[in-house]
């Protein structure tokens, strides 16, 4: 096919899926529909990841916009050594980290000294600050029909309160369904460190769910989910 000849030769021989290959070829020809497809496919997760690093939803949106433009500009030089998705999220995370550092917001990646033993009582994690959860700022859709609305909102709030490193790992692993190697590749983490962050994030969300919902009602709702066929 004529269009495919525009994909860099290196990309042909490497980690691109056939689907990504076609998308990349179309993007390189300036195909607006293909870009719309890219936005629809990745924008929601990109926005949610960016939210972990910056203070406001509008800042997160700006970061995603910058990242998408950087992706478009970089496409002709993209060598396909990783998947398109991995490459895009690397660009996003780098930009979000830079923006977050400029804002002095949240933490960067890497284990902080002493963190390993920080959740001794996982069901009663202390809240370090007053609880002022802006669920309205989340990019999670709390009205998604599969979740009970109260539980959906509580999950939004709990996820939004995680530190950036835990937030990103949790969003990509448990909400987006990425595999551990995919997350490690994007974030430059070892598998072990990724699991530590994932564990902290999961136990943090669980503890906050118990605190924000009535404990008993949270357990009933969670049990309902774990026994449903979708779980």
């Amino acid at each position, binding site marked *: 096919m004529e269009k495919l000849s525009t994909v860099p030769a290196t990309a042909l021989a490497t980690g691109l899926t056939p689907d990504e290959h076609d998308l990349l070829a179309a993007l390189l020809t300036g195909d607006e529909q293909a870009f719309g497809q890219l936005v629809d496919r990745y924008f929601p997760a990109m926005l949610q990841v960016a939210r972990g690093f910056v203070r406001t939803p509008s800042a997160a949106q700006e970061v995603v*916009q910058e990242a998408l433009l950087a992706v478009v500009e970089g496409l002709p030089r993209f060598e396909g050594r990783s998947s398109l998705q991995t490459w895009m999220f690397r660009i996003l995370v780098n930009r979000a980290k830079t923006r977050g550092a400029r804002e002095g917001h949240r933490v960067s990646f890497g284990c902080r000294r002493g963190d390993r033993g920080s959740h001794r009582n996982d069901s009663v994690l202390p809240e370090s600050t007053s609880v002022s959860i802006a669920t309205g700022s989340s990019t999670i859709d709390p009205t998604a029909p599969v979740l009970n609305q109260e539980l959906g909102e509580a999950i939004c709030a709990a996820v939004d309160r995680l530190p950036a490193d835990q937030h990103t790992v949790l969003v990509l692993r448990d*909400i987006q369904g990425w595999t551990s190697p995919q997350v490690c590749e994007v974030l430059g983490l070892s598998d072990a460190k990724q699991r530590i962050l994932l564990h902290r994030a999961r136990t943090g969300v669980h503890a906050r769910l118990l605190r924000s919902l009535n404990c008993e009602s949270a357990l009933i709702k969670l049990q309902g989910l774990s026994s*449903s066929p979708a779980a």
Partner: protein
Amino acid sequence: LRRREELRCQQAVELLTDYLEGALSRRAQDRLEAHLKTCDGCRAYLEQLRATIAALGQVRLATPDPKVRAELIELYWRYHAGSS
């Protein structure tokens, strides 16, 4: 609970994500499973963790605002018009 027992539970809880990820050594997995067999609290905690993961898996991220989407496509179009 005796102090020794508390520590064992704490260690078990620390291993649960590794357990769910299949990242434990055979020996560590056997030790954890032996603990879970005898500890109602840790077993319940594991089930809650599983349920939390299931709940997270059902979260749907908000789709882009149509206006934002249109703006992004406009930027893409301008970039390509300018670079060709």
